[in-house]
């Protein structure tokens, strides 16, 4: 493992990555980049980026053009139609499938990962909202403003029906306070625990009175607004709802929380020092809380490509489900997006239904008994085909052959370890894998398929 001396890191956090002997631009790092900033690359995309070098590869990801394979013609139009139909159908399963479609076939996996990050940040569940159109509108906002200055996203989201219903805004009226929105606005969407008091929550709730919905649209009713003087975060005034949002955006703790979110998305557990997080927060503050800018800084950094950041982040369920389908080029015929959404739910991430206002408990908490068994079952289902709604099984030998591998089990195993983990196995490891496969009665195609499932189920494939 390579370590940058901590003194150097502290002096220049997020210094740009320059390939070196200890951190070369190699297969491992290309796979790492696509897993963190997307779902996973296909073999051709990996080879393309290996040849093009880090700058061109990262440029493509930031520009939303990372995928050269799998994106169908007329994707945006199809996606919009699917979204409309799902919202109109009243069937939540179809809205989940719509998002899966976007993640699996869209040209901008980073955009989808960011949308997922915002879905978790503003964790709104249709369990209470019960309005697919509102859920979809919120989700489109997450996508459209995924890389925008955070103020634009926050303002759009807090004026959007889904969140207002979710946090009981209509129930918050003069003389009848409901603190739900005020509390989560501070604790979860901006400041985090610490910088505010219970009094701040109470007075912010008063400032937010009058915010409500009429015919599924945000509206402010003056008669329900408590126009008295409030003290919020030490500032006195006849504050209204938008003043609260503005004050929270200006607060330095908000930038810290956003920096934390970006690091959670892109960095391994425990590798980001507080100096690095502060530095990222400072950069966000200097740039109008521009999220795209923060993401770019991290993706281009030495810290992002450092050895200590490789393979030390637990893969979330949606990443796991989509990543495998993409890496294995299961585009035509495709898996059923409905079924893939179900799998993600079974593995612990039911889209549009986060478990509570805090979102999904990420990191190690993803790896429960049920989800680990589920991941192995998903791997088996994916290669088998019918249980993910594909008429045919994965042609694991064919895919390896297409990319220049022989049809013997050893090179095939090597190919999939490189494709999925970015690692070339040691002979001893390879031997254990072959032994773990069990007997396949000399059926090479079946052995190759089973090997893919085994690689996906291994501990090493639960992290990236």
């Amino acid at each position: 493992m390579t370590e940058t001396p901590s003194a150097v890191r502290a002096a220049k956090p997020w210094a740009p990555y320059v390939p070196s002997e200890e951190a070369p631009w190699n297969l491992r790092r290309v796979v790492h980049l696509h897993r963190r900033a997307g779902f996973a690359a296909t073999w051709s995309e990996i080879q393309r980026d290996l040849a093009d070098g880090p700058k061109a590869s990262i440029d493509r990801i930031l520009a939303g053009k990372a995928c050269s394979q799998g994106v169908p013609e007329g994707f945006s139009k199809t996606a919009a139609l699917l979204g409309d139909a799902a919202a109109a159908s009243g069937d939540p399963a179809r809205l989940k499938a719509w998002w899966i479609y976007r993640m699996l076939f869209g040209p901008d996996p980073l955009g989808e990962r960011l949308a997922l990050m915002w879905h978790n940040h503003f964790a709104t569940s249709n369990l209470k909202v019960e309005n697919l159109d509102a859920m979809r509108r919120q989700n489109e906002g997450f996508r459209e403003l995924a890389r925008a200055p955070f103020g634009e996203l926050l303002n759009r989201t807090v004026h959007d029906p889904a969140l207002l219903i979710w946090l009981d805004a209509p129930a918050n009226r003069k003389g009848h306070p409901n603190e739900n929105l005020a509390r989560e606005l501070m604790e979860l969407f901006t400041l985090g625990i610490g910088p505010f008091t219970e009094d701040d929550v109470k007075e912010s709730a008063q400032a937010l009175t009058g915010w409500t919905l009429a015919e599924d649209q945000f509206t402010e009713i003056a008669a329900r607004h408590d126009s008295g003087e409030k003290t919020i975060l030490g500032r006195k005034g006849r504050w209204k709802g938008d003043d609260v949002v503005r004050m929270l955006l200006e607060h330095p703790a908000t930038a810290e929380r956003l920096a934390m979110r970006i690091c959670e998305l892109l960095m391994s557990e425990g590798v980001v020092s507080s100096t690095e997080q502060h530095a990222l927060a400072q950069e966000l503050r200097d740039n109008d809380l521009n999220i795209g800018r923060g993401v770019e800084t991290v993706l281009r950094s030495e810290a992002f490509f450092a050895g200590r950041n490789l393979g030390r982040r637990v893969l979330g369920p949606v990443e796991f489900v989509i990543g495998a389908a993409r890496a294995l080029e299961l585009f035509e015929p495709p898996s059923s997006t409905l079924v893939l959404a179900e799998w993600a739910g079974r593995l612990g991430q039911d889209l549009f239904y986060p478990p509570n206002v805090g979102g999904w408990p990420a990191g190690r908490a993803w790896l429960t008994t049920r989800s680990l068994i589920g991941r192995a079952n998903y791997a088996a289902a994916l290669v088998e085909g019918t249980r993910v709604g594909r008429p045919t099984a994965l042609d694991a030998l064919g895919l390896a052959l297409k990319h220049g591998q022989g049809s013997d089990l050893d090179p095939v195993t090597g190919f999939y370890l490189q494709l999925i983990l970015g690692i070339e196995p040691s002979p001893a490891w390879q031997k254990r894998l072959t032994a773990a496969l069990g007997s396949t009665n000399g059926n090479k195609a079946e052995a190759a398929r089973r090997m893919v499932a085994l690689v996906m189920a291994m501990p090493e494939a639960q992290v990236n």
Partner: protein
Amino acid sequence: MFSRRDFLATTLRSSTLLALAPAVPGFLAQTARAAKAEKDSRILVVIQLDGGNDGINTVVPFADEGYAKYRKALRLSTERLIKINDRVGLHASLGDAAKLLESGRLAIVQGVGYPNPSRSHFQSMAIWQSARFDPEEHRSFGWLGRAFDDGAKIAAGETTSLLIGSGPPPLALRGRRAVASAMERTEDFALDSKIDPRRTFSGVTPSDDLTAFVQRSMLDAYSTSEHLTHLGRTSAGQANYPSNGLATRLQLISQLLKIGFGARVFYTVHGGFDTHSTQLPRHSELLFQVSSSLRAFLDDLAAAGLAERVLVLAFSEFGRRVAENSSQGTDHGTAGPVFLAGAGLRAGLVGDTPNLLDLQDGDLKWGIDFRRIYATILEEWLGLPTRTALAGTFERLPLFTG
């Protein structure tokens, strides 16, 4: 009798996987901890009787003149009732419940309700589940979710409560932080392929903490899965569950308890109680299902040495009107009986039997606020605070012997 420690010892010995594991698997470690702990190792199983159970024909006040006055087609003959005392008898289908009563494992709280009762299924159920009356508070959090938020140290992502059944966890379990999840079948824990990633482990304990964690979790998960599959194969012979949906779900809860699954509350719904017409056969069948499943469940737990840790609460969103309707059924009413089952209870009837001649708008007057039952369970059984959960303090009921 088989003690909890014996149970643990046997389980540990029989776990062939222990040899493979770097440490005691987490699911067993959890059970081992639980054996030492007190209130925080106790389990609550909630059975929601959906639709509004006819309490009057469940715990029958046969000596009340009002019974014969208001129940004609639906009147149960006194001879067939299982008498509890000279005024009250259980429906004939509740034979197993009567046995639980005799063996000191069942308490029946009579006349349970709340002020200004709602006769809407949806609203009344929301009131029972949230312990709040303001409809604006009926979409957020429930009494158990709030109690866990307030009183339990919850590790990130740890499931505090589990719905056994389809669909999302009910309002009662939802909290701001408390994690409720749902599970329908043991198949969720069953491996459907022959691949075994444990065999790819090198045998050397990994030097980095995350990889070691993933390996440990995987050993845990796979041994839990094997354990559960094994239990599923063998428990059919050991415990005698009737064949109905509720029994299947209770059996699944029992299996989860046996492998030390960490949830504190298990929740399940048994529907069909909305008996507006030809009520007698349907109601009789439902009561038989509940009573026989409940007894099988408690007997199963007792045989596994788990009886001391489990309390069952069965409730319905309302009782039914005292006077039957013209379709040999009953319409939505108010107060009804609540059932508590398990060890450590003061068995028998609790509270006054509702008076069928002293009605309000044709409905029973309630005698005990349901929140008193909740308060007693939270404080005396689960060791959780009631203040936020119930938005107030309520006088406890003498439900437990301890």
